[in-house]
């Protein structure tokens, strides 16, 4: 089981790098959708957890993160008719290098943490920290509103990975609540994207500075 889990986590880490390297927003959304769907399936791999509520939870997570949210975002992208390039503040190669540095940092750091015995040898903690850091990098270096959402999604994925450490302790309701929050948040932002586009003729969030007093 552990090796399968680790394999998935490595794929997730690689997808982080892909997300940093993506040049088209469509590709970026797809990558994050696949990442979210993969992560949503993790609870099935944790032993003693496979029960009906957990399965429902997995189905909900995969559906929302893998299908619904990407669809909403694609739709927002189409409605706003924006340019399809990501347009990062720093180039794609430096982003990837930064992402790799983040993974290195996360692995080094995770070694220092005192973990419960059953989590030894699992990549959950480093993958979580690395994904959070990559989310931050996406948030700070991608300026378009849609790419900001992607950054938040990656950030949330990182937190979700960390949450699987506590999977036995965390009540189902909390996880469902988090999912609902995420869904509603993204739904609202996608509507706002349209309005930003109409008001500023661009999705560049730097334009919002002009709202400052």
């Amino acid at each position, binding site marked *: 089981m552990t090796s399968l889990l680790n394999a998935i986590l490595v794929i997730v880490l690689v997808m982080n790098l892909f997300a940093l390297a993506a040049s088209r927003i469509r590709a970026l959304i797809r990558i994050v959708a696949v990442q979210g769907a993969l992560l949503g399936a993790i609870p099935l791999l944790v032993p003693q957890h496979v029960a009906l509520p957990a399965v429902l939870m997995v189905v909900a997570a995969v559906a929302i993160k893998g299908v619904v949210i990407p669809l909403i975002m694609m739709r927002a992208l189409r409605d706003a008719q924006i340019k399809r390039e990501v347009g990062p503040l720093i180039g794609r190669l430096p982003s990837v290098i930064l992402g790799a540095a983040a993974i290195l940092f996360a692995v080094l750091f995770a070694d220092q943490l005192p973990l419960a015995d059953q989590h030894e040898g699992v990549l959950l903690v480093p993958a979580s920290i690395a994904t959070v850091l990559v989310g931050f990098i996406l*948030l*700070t270096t991608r300026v378009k509103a849609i790419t900001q959402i992607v950054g938040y999604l990656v950030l949330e994925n990182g937190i979700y990975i960390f949450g699987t450490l506590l999977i036995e302790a965390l009540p189902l309701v909390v996880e469902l609540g988090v999912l609902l929050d995420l869904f509603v948040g993204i739904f609202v932002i996608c509507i706002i994207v349209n309005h930003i586009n109409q008001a500023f003729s661009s999705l560049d969030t730097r334009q919002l*500075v002009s709202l400052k007093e």
Partner: protein
Amino acid sequence: MALTLILIATLLAAGSGLPGVFLGRSSRWGQRVAVGLMASGALAGLAGACLGLTSAQDRIVVFPWPAMGDSLIGVDALSAFFLVPIFLMGGLGSLYSLGYWPQDQHPENGRKLQLFWGLMVAGMALLVLARQAMAFLLGWEVMALSAFFLVSTEDHREECRQVGWVYLVSTHLGTLTLFGLFSLWRWATGSYALLPLASEAVGLGVLNGLFFLALLGFGLKAGMMPLHFWLPGAHANAPSQVSAMLSGVVLKMGVYGLVRFLFLLPDPPGAWGGLILVLGAISGLLGVVFAIGQHDLKRLLAYHSVENIGIILMGLGLAMLGRSAHRPEWIVLGLAGCLLHVWNHSFFKSLLFLCAGSVVQATHTQEIDRLGGLAKRMPWTAGLFLVGAVAICGLPPLNGFVSELLVYLGLFRTITVPGAGGSAAVIGAPVLAMIGALAVACFVKVYGAVFLGTPRDHDPAQAHEAPLSMRAPMLVLAACCALIGLAPGLVAPVLDRAMAGLLPPGSAPFSVASLVPLDTVGAMSLALVAFAGVLALAFTARGRAARRVGTWDCGYALPTSRMQYTAASFAQIIVTMFAWVLRPRVHPPGIEGPFPRAAGMHSHVDDLVLDRVLAPVGRCVARWCDWIHQLQQGLTQHYVLYILIAVVLMLSTLLPIDGFLSRLFAR
């Protein structure tokens, strides 16, 4: 019983403004309901306080508050003593607002005023009842924040907003200090309960820390001299009944905190009492000197609050000196003077502020040099202001004299002891005498300029007497002043009871009545009143009508009433005497050429701390910190980047960098 009554009163006060919030903006019924609730609350509270002062047992009720350990609430004689002015002024001020701040004329802020007035009264009642630090802080914050909303009632005025901010900053500083104080208390004693410490329970360093934090936190609220900077502006710009409440009662909560807290600490070093005495003397002297330099009626009264807090602190300082020198008679006299002056100041200062409010309402100005001749137009206000002025100057036969007499007698007692105690009297007594003399000069200036002479402007000439709803509270306060002044023997047992819990055990033989011949004082005051009455009768009996003649005007053909002797010119001589601290700023008129144009001159006295220290320092700091604006561009990306940097830095501190390096470079 007492506690139940007081808790009911607190609830009534807290909810008094609520019904009005749901009624119309300009409906007078909301205000009437608020006044009714507040008045019933005040009556219940006063009854409870009287019961608390007379009943012997000290009952403490435990309120469950799981997060903070259990909260203790109880009423003892000291709480009851401070509850009297809280509920008295709470009720009277609310009644006063019926005439002074009618809801239908102030639809934009009338409801706010009533709501926060009730909350402030309730907050103060809670803080006086609290026997546990968290409940105390809760009451303290409710009081302080409501006071902020009351001070900035007229928030459409720029100046009002500004003093509101100054007040908010200062009160938060004070609360921060109190957080420090109670955290240290918790650390030292292991609980938040405010119970007396056994001697030798904590070290001297911790005791000193507790003392200085208490002095700073409570001193800020009380308006002790270097920390008084928020006070004049806030008092001058709030509605008058709020100024009366702030000056008469809210400042006293600082004094209450000091009295309650300092007497929990065992074995005070002599320096504490000395420091409080010196600070009190400075506040008293500078307070009255700054008051003389003011041109604004309410600002002047506000500086007099600083002065009176100084007198109260001198009494407290003397009591603390008595504790360190083991002289119960100093404690009794000093503390009795301190506590009685708390009552007295809350009566006469509230009276003066309410009179000032009626002057402001009638004339639409609080500038002393624009008023004049109000005694004929507003005889009630003029007479009541005179009562307050005589009382605040500490003249017999009114109450200010009695409390100052107690402090004087206490200071004189210290002379007989050689050594450190003697110096207390050396500075104390003459400073107190000087404060009294300057206060008389100041109130001669105010009374002469505002009520005597002829009106200097159009508005004072049109002034009318205040309505009954405003006069009644002033009459009650004046009656309190006269009662304590003429029958001081009545308050002696009250003071004895209030101090009973604070005196060291074994000092029972000393009571106020045994140390001070209060009955003689009362008899002499009565004789004085009788003598004055006879004199007045004799003058009226002679029936000489006043003749109306023009004053000598140096031969000028067209004198106007603006040419009267002004308050500023009356105060000039004292202002020049104290120019080294007042630094009066005069902007002289520029008169040029053979046919000069109309010119004007004005002068003002800036505040010592706010205008001359804090404002320049604040501007300097703002200039140095300009570069920080670079960091705040309004870009979310930047802010997220800051978070990222902070997180990575904090995580990095957990990495064993040395271990990595040694592993990398080891063979």
